[in-house]
């Protein structure tokens, strides 16, 4: 079986926050937000609370959480590797980690040519 290169990673600090939230809210997912204020950052929701759109792109899974974004936004992430990190702070969105006094954040780099040649295919919609 082919070993795919992943588009996603997660830091240990972010893993610990995911564990804490999962214990309280059950299965989780991420959806990358756009737009003003707290946008351009990943939102963390309980699976089933945020409705994944039929065209949303699933970039993969990190620490048991699928990571989605709108297809329009994905155009600009196609060549990027994304790491989910967490920093102290206070966002104003509905993301679940905010009451803990922390905020998820993404760090990005360009995918290498070798990675691009062997990327895990993205999924579409909630089924993937």
């Amino acid at each position, binding site marked *: 079986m082919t070993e795919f290169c992943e588009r996603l990673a997660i830091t240990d600090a972010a893993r610990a926050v995911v564990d804490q939230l999962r214990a309280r809210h059950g299965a989780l997912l991420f959806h990358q937000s*756009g737009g003003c204020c707290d946008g*351009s*950052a990943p939102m963390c929701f309980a699976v089933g609370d945020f409705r994944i759109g039929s065209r949303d792109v699933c970039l993969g899974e990190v620490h048991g959480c699928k990571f989605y974004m709108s297809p329009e936004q994905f155009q600009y*992430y196609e060549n990027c590797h994304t790491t989910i990190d967490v920093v102290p*702070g206070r966002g104003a969105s509905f993301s679940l980690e905010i*009451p803990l006094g922390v905020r998820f954040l993404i760090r*990005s780099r360009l995918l290498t040519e070798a990675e691009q040649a062997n990327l895990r295919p993205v999924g579409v919609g909630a089924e993937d």
Partner: protein
Amino acid sequence: MTFQRPQFKPQYENYIGGRWVAPIDGKYFEDTSPIDGKLVTRIPQSSAKDIDLAVKKAWEAFPAWGKTSAAARSAILNKIADTIEANIQQLAMVETCDNGKGIRETLGADLPLVIDQFRYFAAAIRTESGSVSDIDSTLVSMEIHEPLGVVGQIIPWNFPLLMAAWKIAPALAAGNCVVLKPAEQTPVSILVLMELIGDLLPPGVLNVVNGFGAEAGKPLASHPDIKKIAFTGETTTGRLIMQYASENIIPVSLELGGKSPNIFCASVMDQDDAFLDKAIEGLVMFALNQGQVCTCPSRALVHESIYERFMEKCLPRVAAITMGDPYELTTMMGAQASNDQYEKILSYIDIGKKEGAQLLCGGQSYKNAQYPGGFYIQPTVFKGHNKMRIFQEEIFGPVLAVTTFKDDEEALAIANDTLYGLGSAVWSRDMHQVQTFVRGIQAGRVWVNCYHVYPAHASFGGYKKSGIGRENHHMMLDHYRNTKNVLISYAKEKMGFF
């Protein structure tokens, strides 16, 4: 002139039913100032129970408030404006402390616009009319407006008082009662405002419940007894709000940001005059409010024939931006609103560098010697192309992405190659060219030879993914009302069907 950090109570409560009410679960969170990272006060960490109480109190107030005459509602809105005006300095200092923006902006822009917003809607409801049509000689159709009832409003942190005013004023003017949730980064200015204006309104007409999005925002947005929800923020939460609204089949108004193009045509450089000077300032407007504006002109499109000469004039103007003490009137840029905002902006500056954009200035944090615990970032300018993420994603910080274009067609293509359509601007001495851009740009606001001007009575809202609704204009009244058609027959004869 230097202002002072204002005094706060050690703890604030929710404002529900005309009284200060402790959160039912007794939980509070710490509100800090981004200027120095230090504690401001403690704020209720409310839950669904507090939202339920506020919605209940708002409905108790609605039967009377909804029937209050336009003259009486208008008079109250004018009193609110007068009270804010009488306390402008205190409110400006509070806003600066909680948000981090310079006092020159809160005193010179935010608060004057807040005052005017209340006066504008006070006037609008005195001067508007419904409509009457003669359908035929015996049938008259009347369109009349009635308030929705109790509405929910979720306020952002970039202009806490002004965005609250943009939502409160039309909702109250239209005869609704409001349950409002301030942003958790910047809750205190709205609470200080309620200390000043609370008594001007009947109890329960305007309720403020604090807390986090997941714990208080969600119960508000999904509450079965609200008749409308208004939100300013980002797209994913915007989608979630629409999803909750779909469960109750209620209207939403959303303002979700942009990536606004600021287009500089070649004729800008035809003369070295006051207009050129204004255009240079127009480019530097990306730094206003530390770039934390939904309409931040974060993409500058400059005609290739003037690029070098124009940027030679603009970059020194960026370098001349004074940073320092936000309480000092001469400071042009203050702190970013929170640590996570600060970290996110730096992460996007890093993305710009990795994408190969050319850094023209800034590109790092600003070390504020007076406030080492605050969150400051240097105004930053990159040159690149429109497919880069720094050209496509809203950074919500003082980061400008500049590119060039060869002709009007290419400029329009670049301007519209974005998910958003909130703000935009065109700078030109040629009125025919201006008109091409005005009609070609897909955005709710096109500034012509100006930027960042927000007078009441100039509608504000988005095309594309930037949202739904038009604030800052009397058309917002119809986002807060039902329309009732009264069809009156003066004919005595039956229709003849039965």
